[in-house]
């Protein structure tokens, strides 16, 4: 790393006398409040704006992103984040709107939320969506709270205690179930990498509250018996939950509502092109079938003048809206204020940019790109379920590891050296030495070809010179990091030098 990339902590740069002139010098705080109510000192550095700019500019340059590189991180849908979405979210009228303004002064914002909800309703075949939850896991929690309240209402709170999740499920599924006090039962996938109707029938019963699935599942495979599964679960009185993290394969293709799901969430920060921002904020609308609508969290955006027959989108121009907090059966609210609204703007902007046809094409091309990569590497690495996949697929380095010692992790690190993000590794859990690859629809064939070439080169090198792969990365700002040390001797913050 050249010297100029060094970035000492912001706390080690600042110095007294370097404050920026943002505000007039204020009176001492003790003019306003008794001394004992005040803190003694504020041990933060004063940094000149130049130093702040240089610091964060350099930090940004040491951060891998979609804007700089290809990011085939399975299950994360790292597609291009169109800048027009940000510009719309930053329109001052929307950006600077206080959440507690009276509804009549927030009509444009409510219209955005309503139009988005209606678009999602049609696109995914649910009766309604709540935009309340802040992310996917938050949405799962919301949905399971809905399920709990639903069963309570119908006197089954004490009997419906189990949530079933396939072994391919994301960790948030069982974790969310646990947060609602459900017992979690894991379901083995069949030889085709899917949930089998037989297995599910064995697993379910009168104690089944919810079965959580995604489709395509996290192996990128379409659950082709999904209707039979949801029917079976409904037959025993359970609810079906759809984890929408994989919805990028589904738009205009098939709808969770039609598959028989009662509950679902979307990761707008995946499917709807909202930037991940280094790990958030996200947005996780929850969709429900008709029987669960009363349980949605508050507030709900309600049209107050024209009530439409249509469930899907139509222009909101002549309509007026209100936030409805007064919903008897609601589970309550999940957050400080209404929704991650700026992201609703982004998601609706994305919807307008594509329309139904465009969104359908998004999913088609996402599937095409993923299949193209699979077909281009399958001669060099094991594809445990080698059939048409959807928007992502899973490879396994198990055989390679046995042969050469090179693991999935090593392949990922070697990709970093070549300018590509590592695939998701070690998830889903059922595939050993798993590499989960999701290219998304926004990448060009040239980019895919570049990645394929690098991937193939690594697989070849792994056999010829395994150490070279196990030593990766070497072109990066730092090399492999001692994670044990990080966990054993936690250093989680800067501390001022003792005086």
């Amino acid at each position, binding site marked *: 790393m050249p010297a100029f990339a060094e970035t000492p902590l912001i706390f080690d740069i600042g110095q007294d006398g370097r404050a920026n002139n943002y505000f007039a010098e204020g009176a001492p705080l003790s003019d306003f409040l008794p001394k004992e109510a005040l803190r003694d000192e504020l041990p933060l550095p004063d940094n000149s704006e130049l130093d702040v700019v240089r610091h964060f500019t350099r930090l940004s340059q040491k951060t891998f992103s979609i804007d700089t590189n290809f990011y085939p991180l399975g299950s994360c849908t790292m597609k291009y984040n169109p800048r027009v979405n940000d510009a719309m979210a930053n329109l001052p009228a929307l950006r600077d709107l206080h959440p507690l303004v009276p509804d009549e002064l927030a009509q444009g914002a409510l219209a955005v939320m309503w139009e988005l909800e209606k678009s999602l309703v049609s696109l995914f075949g649910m009766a309604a969506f709540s935009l309340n939850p802040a992310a996917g896991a938050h949405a799962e929690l919301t949905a399971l709270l809905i399920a709990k309240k639903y069963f309570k209402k119908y006197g089954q709170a004490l009997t419906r205690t189990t949530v079933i999740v396939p072994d391919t499920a994301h960790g948030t599924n069982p974790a969310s179930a646990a947060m609602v006090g459900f017992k979690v039962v894991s379901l083995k996938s069949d030889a085709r990498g899917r949930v089998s109707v037989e297995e599910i029938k064995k697993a379910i019963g009168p104690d089944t509250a919810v079965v959580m699935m995604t489709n395509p599942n996290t192996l990128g495979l379409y659950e082709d018996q999904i209707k039979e599964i949801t029917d079976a679960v409904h037959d025993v009185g359970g609810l079906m939950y759809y984890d929408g993290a994989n919805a990028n394969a589904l738009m205009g293709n098939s709808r969770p509502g039609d598959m028989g799901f009662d509950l679902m969430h979307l990761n707008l920060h995946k499917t709807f092109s909202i930037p*991940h921002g280094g790990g958030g904020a996200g947005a996780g609308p929850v969709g429900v079938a008709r029987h669960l609508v009363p349980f949605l969290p508050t507030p709900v955006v309600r049209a107050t003048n024209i009530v439409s027959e249509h469930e899907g989108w139509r222009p909101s121009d002549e309509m007026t809206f209100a936030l409805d907090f007064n919903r008897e059966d609601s589970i309550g609210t999940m957050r400080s204020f209404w929704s991650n609204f700026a992201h609703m703007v982004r998601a609706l902007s994305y919807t307008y940019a594509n329309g139904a046809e465009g969104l359908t094409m998004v999913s088609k091309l996402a599937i095409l790109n993923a299949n193209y990569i699979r077909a281009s590497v399958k001669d060099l690495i094991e594809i445990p379920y080698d059939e048409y996949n959807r928007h992502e697929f899973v490879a396994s380095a198990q055989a390679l590891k046995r042969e050469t010692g090179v693991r999935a992790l090593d392949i990922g690190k070697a990709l970093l050296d070549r300018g590509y993000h590592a695939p998701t590794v070690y998830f889903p859990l059922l595939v050993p030495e798993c590499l989960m690859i999701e290219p998304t629809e926004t990448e060009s064939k040239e980019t895919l070809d570049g990645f394929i070439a690098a991937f193939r080169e690594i697989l070849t090198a792994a056999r010829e010179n395994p150490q070279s792969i196990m030593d990766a990365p070497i072109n990066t700002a730092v090399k492999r990091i001692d994670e044990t040390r990080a966990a054993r001797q936690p250093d989680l913050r800067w501390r001022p030098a003792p005086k």
Partner: protein
Amino acid sequence: MLRLIGASSLDELVKVPDAVAIKVPLEVAPALPESELTQRFASFAARVGATDYISFLGAGAYRHYVPPVIATLAMRGEFLTAYTPYQAEVSQGYLQAIYEWQSYIALLTGMDVANASVYDGATALAEGTIMAVNATGRKAVLVSRAVHPNYRAVLQTYADGLDLDVDELPYAAEGTTDLSSIEAALADQRYAAVVLQTPNMFGALDALPSGMAEKIKATGTLVIGVIAEALSLAALATPASWGVDIAVGEGQSFGVSLAYGGPYVGFIACTTEHLRRIPGRLVGKSLDKDGNEAYVLTLQAREQHIRREKATSNICTNQAHCALVATIYLAAMGKTGLRNCASANLKRSRELEKAVTAIDGFTKRFSAPFFNEFAVRVPGGSAGSVLKALQKQGILGGVDLGRWYPELEDTILMTATEVTTDADIKQLVAALQEVRSLAGVR
């Protein structure tokens, strides 16, 4: 590409069983070219009436001055379009920024450690409460009624899931939490934690009086401190100093846009004792193979992707980018900027207090010292109708506390920050005078 894949057509590749094929036309917002899309959103923006209103709204979401440099840096594509920094070797920049955020929150709250963020202030309270529940094995929590009602509502929702009891502490005449019965309440050691907020929902400083934290802890109960106005941390005694075990709060005031309620950024900080119960991500400093300092996500054994149903929380995606905004804000402000800003909030809110209470019939509802907002009792008994009348004059006069507290339907929570101007206050006073005389209220 299709040839290589072996598919005859794109449609073959994406085929699904007939039973689940889409049978109805999709009704979705129609496709617009970008130049028309921007006009569509301009029309949404034009339908936001609040834009030019003078505002005294606060109550958990605050208008503050944000230097342009913040967005310039935070919106850089590398930050905006990165995923969670799982691959540390190519994410040192973002990881360091999160480490700096954790440090800032620890320094501001006085606590030992802070996490990489949770969704918002309300969910921070819910998650902090779960920490306390896990730490104590107790399934009830005692919460001041002066904690933000929305935060309490979220806590209740989470509590319903986990079958926790949420009991309330009343507030006293001065507007602070009434602690007179607390020792009795804690006697049977049911409560995992006592929860207070400062400044509280009425704007009043509401830290525990000295000695009280010790008494609470003596019953095996933890203290959770809530901060809904993060700027107050620049001025007020730290949560650590009044005995908090777990500090939770909302960082919106640190440069994050109001955006009609989100995304904001929740934080959780705690003593080292509770470190391994903290939810969500943590960034630690370690060494790389060559012995160079390096940052990395750590203590992941707490998290759902490793521990699944045994995790401390289900949180995965958090509010990283809002935390980044806040980190850049704090770096640019520094202690001097924050102090000056806090001082201006104190000054402006006192000017507002003086101006409003000088009007016949408008009185302070509570006497406790406040930071940048305070409760005003209006003549005539209806906060709602006063606010409506102000609204007709282009003024958002504050928040009707009757929305959450039936006994306070004559009370408005009014907020002034460093962006409140003399002219704003003058216009409010003129309007209030008019409102009073028009309504004939006395």
